């Protein structure tokens, strides 16, 4: 991939999604455009870039941005945040919200759905009474194609092997040939929406638990700060923010305080 083409792609992706593709990532861009070129019958990454440059924004432009997103995910990813949810966060928030019986969750980088479905399985296993509450569970992602997969609730054998105990697999999934489908009664509790974290956040209710795990790493410092500032506005004063293991609010937003649990860290608003 020539430097000019790489610069064009990384600038376009950054404008559209705020995702940063550092110099040196040419191989990654090329490999992902290669797949797209094959799927779109366009022959090569160069042919895709030529079309992007010459055509006004269309479906292909969107597909290129989608192709640059990393959708690595797994059920109960890193485990410890889910332990913190089970042992502390949910019991505490359930006690506080008992009068209203309402809890609002948001997964901000839901990918193919493993994170929201893991939380739902955790609730069904340990806090089944919560399913009788008024729960809003919003799961968003930049990429429409992965959200479509998340909505379908279908996972292949490799995906269910990643982090999902066999006991939960047989309890919450129905096998259809080589695929497994997440139980519909739980699936329909999640509202999946396309959403660009670098753009408009309207439509999100006040939130009790926000998952923004393993997504800030793809943005530059200014975008991270903006995202954290927006999170402050929608997170309830006693709500929790969960980030990925390599992410922090430190040096980005002083309004958040670290809360350490066993082997994980969450964030809450500092008292005003």
């Amino acid at each position, binding site marked *: 991939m020539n430097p000019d083409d790489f610069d064009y792609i990384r600038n376009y992706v950054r404008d559209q999604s705020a995702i940063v593709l550092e110099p040196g990532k040419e191989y990654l861009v090329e490999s992902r455009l290669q797949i797209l070129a094959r799927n779109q019958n366009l022959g090569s990454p160069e042919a895709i870039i030529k079309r992007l440059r010459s055509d006004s924004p269309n479906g292909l432009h969107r597909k290129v941005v989608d192709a640059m997103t990393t959708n690595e995910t797994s059920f109960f990813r890193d*485990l410890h945040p889910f332990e913190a949810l089970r042992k502390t966060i949910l019991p505490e928030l359930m006690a506080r919200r008992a009068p209203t019986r309402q809890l609002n969750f948001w997964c901000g980088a839901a990918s193919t759905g493993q994170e929201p479905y893991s939380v739902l399985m955790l609730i069904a296993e340990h806090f089944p009474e919560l399913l009788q509450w008024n729960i809003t569970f919003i799961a968003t992602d930049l990429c429409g194609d992965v959200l479509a997969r998340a909505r379908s609730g279908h996972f*292949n054998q490799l995906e269910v092997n990643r982090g999902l105990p066999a006991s939960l697999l047989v309890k919450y999934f129905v096998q259809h040939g*080589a695929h497994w489908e997440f139980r519909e009664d739980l699936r329909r509790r999640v509202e999946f929406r396309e959403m660009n974290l670098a753009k408009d956040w309207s439509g999100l209710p006040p939130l009790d638990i926000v998952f923004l795990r393993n997504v800030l790493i793809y943005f530059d410092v200014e975008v991270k700060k903006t995202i954290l500032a927006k999170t402050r506005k929608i997170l309830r004063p006693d709500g929790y923010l969960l980030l990925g293991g390599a992410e922090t609010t430190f040096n980005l937003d002083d309004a958040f305080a670290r809360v350490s649990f066993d082997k994980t860290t969450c964030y809450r608003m500092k008292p005003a």
Partner: protein
Amino acid sequence: MIDLDRLIEQANELAPLPASTVRLAEMVGSPDCHLDDVVELISFDQALTARLLRAANSATSGSAIRVGTVQEAVTRMGTAQVFALAMSSSARPFLRARVPAYNLGEGALWRHSVAAAVAAEIVPVFCQIVVPPETFTAALLHDVGKLVMGRFLNPEILGFIRRAQEIDHLDRLEAEALLLNVHHGELGGLIAQHWKLPPCVVLGITYHHNPDQGRHVICDLTCLSNQVAKFIEAGLDGRQFNFAIARETAQRLGLTPETLTDLGPFAVSRYSQVCRRYNAV
């Protein structure tokens, strides 16, 4: 970049392991394993019976008295050795194949697998933990995923993997996961599931490069066995090899730098002995 559904399909199309081997794997891993059950199972498998009697009566078995029955052979060798013989014989036809995408010529994967299995047999001497009996199988089969993965890795994909390793300093497994959304460990786990091997064998194979994620001691042990196999191979080639074992893994296994220093040469010696005894490689 590769069709995951097709990849899964191919993993599930590998010929099954002999039923007696799968059943033996279950028995050996069970706390209720009875010698009589093992003897009965083997008695119904003529090929395995013949191999077992040959091994029990071999010059290196340490006894001048010939055994004539399965019961005597199992008693002489012990269930773990019997199972190792059965599993090795079953896996050998698969693991002898060439896998050019991983620079493995004919027999190279088999030699590495045997070295890892030998390592699995000796690590109980060096580790301060109880070693699950399934460790041998997980070690022997830890790279079985390469067999299927290798079919999908064309020169173009291999070029991307090489660049990811060079530019971002990723290891092979991380590069596969980033570019293909699957790595050979996961695919090996899938094959082990297809072969109906016990769940902890599946875990050991799947997470042999990243044992933290497996959350089971067999993952640490399989990781260690792989490292010891590389040490053995390097030693036989006259190369230096430094163990690359995460601190957490070493802690969980109770390993110290000193025990690793002792483990390596012991493993090389044991591997050579096994090769002579069973003409294994």
